[in-house]
């Protein structure tokens, strides 16, 4: 009796092990087939390597003009008055820049779902009006300073007909999303897919708050359905080029978090954004980026960008 029982126990174990093996094998295959095709696999993006270029002056100018960036600045009620000042700073360097304010009075005392709705409407509008004319769409808060030339350089070798969604990313559990404070970059393909989702699927159109998510997280959730994944943009040292804080904060943080008395520089030479700036600080950045420099230092860059017409501060 006992041996029969033991035999059946052992048979059971054997069957159990085999079934475990089968289950895991099949589930792995399922995951691979099931996931949407990734157009590009990296989660970290880098600027062009520089060795790729050896071109004439004329081609340089053409190349520089081929990357067309449309800038969206989200207007927020508390920053109303500063738009007039902001407009005279970095947005002049976009191929085109528009400020998108929330339509109705509901936006004052704006709540999370209001911001998400505003973002959807903004992107929807931007795609419909400008999707045919621009290859990249850069969205920023009114407290963010951006160096569009560095953005264009970063995007130089990236194909806008691929779905790119990049910026300063943050992991929230399993979700990687681009923090709006650092600026959100969408290729025209990514924006096209988002637009399609908004109009054809229930998923993003009507859903209000997912587990109390901020609107930049909501965007990431939605874009995932379209096979668009967030990627963190870095320079060759692995430093973020999109920053959610001002330079002074980054300096202080780098120095306080490092136990060594002498730390390496905090920030990238080709940084694209800094956040947390007042309109006054924007003017200082204009001077610091587009004017102030050391005599006798020359760069031979692949791209060439001319100063905008009729301004003094750059």
């Amino acid at each position, binding site marked *: 009796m006992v041996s029969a*029982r033991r035999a*059946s*126990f*052992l*048979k*059971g*174990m*054997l*069957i*159990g*092990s085999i*079934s*475990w093996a089968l289950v*895991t094998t099949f589930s792995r295959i399922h995951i691979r087939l099931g996931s949407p095709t990734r157009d590009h696999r990296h*989660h970290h993006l880098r600027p062009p390597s*520089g060795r790729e270029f050896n071109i004439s*002056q004329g081609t340089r100018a053409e190349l*520089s003009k081929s990357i067309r960036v449309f800038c969206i600045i989200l207007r927020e009620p508390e920053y109303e008055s500063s738009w007039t000042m902001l407009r005279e700073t970095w947005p002049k360097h976009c191929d085109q820049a528009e400020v998108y304010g929330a339509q109705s009075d509901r936006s004052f005392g704006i709540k999370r779902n209001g911001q998400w709705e505003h973002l959807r409407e903004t992107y929807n509008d931007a795609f419909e009006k400008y999707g045919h004319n621009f290859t990249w769409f850069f969205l920023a808060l009114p407290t963010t300073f951006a*160096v569009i*030339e560095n953005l*264009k*350089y970063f995007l130089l070798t990236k194909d806008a007909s691929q779905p790119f969604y990049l910026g300063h*990313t*943050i992991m*929230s559990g399993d979700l*990687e999303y681009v923090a709006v404070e650092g600026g959100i970059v969408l290729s025209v393909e990514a924006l096209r897919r988002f637009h399609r989702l908004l109009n054809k699927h229930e998923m993003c159109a009507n859903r209000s708050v997912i587990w109390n998510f901020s609107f930049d997280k909501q965007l990431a959730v939605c874009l995932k359905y379209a096979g668009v994944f967030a990627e963190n943009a870095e320079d060759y040292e692995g430093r973020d080029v999109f920053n959610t804080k001002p*330079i002074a*904060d980054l*300096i*202080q*943080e780098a120095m*306080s978090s490092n136990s060594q*008395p002498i730390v*390496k*520089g*905090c*920030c*990238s*030479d080709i940084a694209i954004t800094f956040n947390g700036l007042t309109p*006054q600080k924007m003017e200082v950045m*204009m*001077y*610091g*980026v*587009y*004017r*102030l*420099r*050391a*005599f*006798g*230092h*020359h*760069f031979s860059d*692949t*791209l*060439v*960008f001319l*100063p905008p017409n009729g301004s*003094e501060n750059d």
Partner: protein
Amino acid sequence: MASKSWLNLLTFLCGSAIGFFLCSQLFSILLGEQGDTQPKILHNDPHARHSDDSGQNHLAGQMNFNADASQHKDENTDIAENLYQKVRILCWVMTGPQNLEKKAKHVKATWAQRCNKVLFMSSEENKDFPTVGLKTKEGRDQLYWKTIKAFQYVHDHYLEDADWFMKADDDTYVILDNLRWLLSKYSPEQPIYFGRRFKPYVKQGYMSGGAGYVLSKEALKRFIDAFKTEKCTHSSSIEDLALGKCMEVMNVEAGDSRDTTGKETFHPFVPEHHLIKSYLPRTFWYWNYNYYPSVEGPGCCSDLAISFHYVDSTTMYELEYLVYHLRAYGYLYRYQPALPENILKEVSQVNKNEDSKVKLGNP
């Protein structure tokens, strides 16, 4: 019989469950954390983290922006290097024992490295930092005395090691490359000195102490001589004014340090104070002191600015970053100043065989 087979079945099921469980555990132990095949990028910054205690200005460490040479591999510094050889500048920084860790350290970590020679002047000697001990007391009323002694020390020990002699405070940020560009147009044998020119009290004007000033070799010789021959007084509570008066007495010219478009290069405040219209109130002393017409807004400041004052430790690094590191890729600057003829010829010679696309004089 039924109960026996039922019991057998139960045993069988137990066995299979245990077998299943054991296998999965065994595999996970053997292969470690298999799970996710994609790299998980964990960012340290949560969504909204507030910056460090803003009341604290004291930066404990130092930052070396220049440790990242790889970001500058496409940078051509021939002209800057040529000027470094041609226009030798000795910098001396006015500091004190209580400021070495708080302020002077950050000067040393940033712009001071670009001087041909730098000395930190304090009332006491400090061999570790190092500082020169002037054997004076500390305090605002000692500034002129410290200045005289500092220039005396420089004259006695380093006169032949430099062409120009710059004085700065430990809260002044100086852009040496731009200072060399200014001075390259003049000879060190000329009796001349430069800085932010103020107009009151001295006919030809005098240079603001905080914004820093630089004397030619001849000017330094005359300044030292003035005390030997007692043409200038030793005591004054206003350092920059006293020096300015002495310069006038000794026929040292107060130079015009503005750039070729008339924009100021030496600044008594940080960029923000000059760039923002109405930042400084109309009643502020500054408006009455400036020798040349004061300008607010973008016209306040040259692209090739030489100095800023009242710079705290964080701003030292921020300026270092803005001047020498952060740039707009591919941007063609509006202001394209020319090099002096002699320097241009020299650098052209050197670059004759190199890529002619490198435009000289387009920094």
